[in-house]
């Protein structure tokens, strides 16, 4: 069972994180950006779970934290989507290039 080494988990998490980061930084559609952020969060969760099972001092804490993170991510996604809908009502668009009001 324990033939899969920790480095595999970590590599998977790294790959997932990089995909998420790339998506968050390059995609034009805000919904995709939000999904990409979820992807990055989940990469972190994989790390947490991997370390709780195969780390230097295995403990159940990591998995608990992962659950917390999933709950917080759900709430965050809800808030993010709500903001997105509000923005969409204002701008009639979900194109992230058009949301540049931070400039002012």
């Amino acid at each position, binding site marked *: 069972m324990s033939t899969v080494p920790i480095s595999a988990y970590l590599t998977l998490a790294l790959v997932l994180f990089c995909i998420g*980061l790339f998506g*968050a*930084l*390059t995609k034009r559609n805000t919904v995709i*950006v939000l999904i990409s952020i979820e992807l990055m969060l989940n990469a972190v969760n994989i790390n947490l779970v991997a370390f709780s099972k195969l780390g230097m001092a295995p403990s159940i804490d990591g998995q608990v934290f992962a659950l917390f993170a999933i709950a917080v991510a759900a709430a965050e996604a809800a808030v993010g989507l709500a903001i997105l809908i509000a923005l969409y009502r204002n701008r009639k668009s979900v194109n*992230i*290039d058009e*949301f*540049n*009001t*931070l*400039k*002012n």
Partner: protein
Amino acid sequence: MMENAWIIPLFPLLSFLFLIVFGKRLRAVSAYIGIFLTFASFIISLLVLIARFGSPTYKAEGIWLTIGDYQLTAGYEVNQLNALMLVIVSLVSFLVHMYSKGYMHGDGRISVFYAYLGLFTFAMLGLVLSPNLLQTYIFWELVGLGSFLLIGFYFYKEEAKAAAKKAFIMTRIGDVGLFIGMILLFWQVGSFEYDEIFAAVSAGMISEQMITLIALLIFIGAVGKSGQFPLHTWLPDAMEGPTPVSALIHAATMVAAGVYLVASMFPLFAASETAMMTIAIIGAFTAIFAASIGIVQKDIKRVLAYSTVSQLGFMMLALGSAGYVAGVFHLMTHAFFKALLFLAAGSVIHAVHTQDIEKMGGLWKKLRVTGPLFLIGTLAISGVPLLSGFFSKDEILVSTWVHGHTFLFWLAVVAAFFTAFYMFRLFFMVFTGEARGKTANVKESPGVMVIPMLILAVLAIGAGYVNTPWFGTFLGDWLTEGNQALGHGHVEGPAWIMVVATAVSLLGILLAWLMYGKKTIARDWFSAGVPTVYGILANKYYIDEFYKMTIVKGTTAFSRILHFIEVIVVEGIMKMVAGIISGLSKLGSRFQSGQVQTYGTVAFLGLAILVIFFAVTGGYLK
């Protein structure tokens, strides 16, 4: 009485301050205030002069500033020259104040006019009372300011504005010379006091060359103020001011300041043969130079202005020929008859509303009072025997001859001939012959204008008798009393000089009468005969044009170069610095695009760089 002399300049100052503050409300009443206060000045000046006859020089000083070990003093002094000048200045000023009441009648800014007159009189009286060079210099500049304000009184006229500026700038050129001379003198003597300066000069504390240099520099100041060649061009232009101002400033007081300065510093000048020679030459040259211009001028006031320049040249010639008494004597008589001539000219202008003598003529019958008064002034300035100008001019000629300036003497004689000629040309053109302009409603001036002229006419006739070779040289003896440096009270000269002087003035009058009175000689025989000379004279020897071509053009070119440097070099560097900063900031502002993703990228890159950096260095910074 002499200890109260300090109060004399305060009356006109009071008039100035009072009218500046309350003038707008007082309007025409301001004239009475000005007249009353200058009258008070005159009365005290007269009392001071009378007191000075019986007692020695009075001098009072207080400490003004203490700088290190040296104490600057300020105070007042009443010596013979000061006392005499006080009376001349305050009397002429008072008469001009009175005359202006009529002349400036109805002018909306009459209170301002009287305020300026007060300021000017204050400055001139203060100048006369000053016991040291520094104080003299302060009042000297105040006099310049007063004249600037008065010449530019009709500031809405472009010519008046230009003339005021010109007068100020031209006299400033002279003032720079005076200032440098003053500083040099202080450096050499360590004091501004006249007494100490003269003591140092007579003790031989200053080297000969230094005295010459200082004397010449101070003389430059006098050249500027007294309208001597080559700084004379402001004086004729200054005729743009109201005519009473011309009488006050450009006949009797301000231009006399230069002569007064040379006279009051006479012991210094007398110590340098070169300086005396320069003064005499400049004076004689100015006398004949200005007189020759005066012959062809067509503006009544300009003729008088050039005549003033010429007469000031006579005074300088006298001073330069060691004729201290002659110079001061002529200063006094000239103040009276020239003020009279200007006031009479003002009366003529007031009546016919033009200054062009071509448009006058036949006014003798219309102006029953002004005409004879003008004639008296003309006779006096022409040096006709028994009038004041005769005695003082004779004194000058004698001084020049006795001092050995033969050539300058003959120049002065020719200038005297010119003087008689152009003054009578003026008289005949204005008062005799056919009326050439509109003279239908010409009226004699009011009494308030006539009375000052009457007083001046009496003085123009009689003032000469205080110093005559026939009845005694009271003025000369008194002026030089107790002061060896000023020379003798009376210079004995050959009797034929008086005959020559009388002859040339009568000859000048005769020629003027033949040309302009009886018209036996055609008026244009000269201008048609030698048009080149006439053109040169009519254009005042092209001095103004010459200055415009050289100094004005030169200064303009120089300022262009400076402007170029300013634009290219100074502004270039400044713009470069500003450009670098703004370029950098533009570059920086590019990063703030408002695009969250860009921010994210930058933040991530930054993080990545940090991580790589720490990975390489092992987490420690050296």
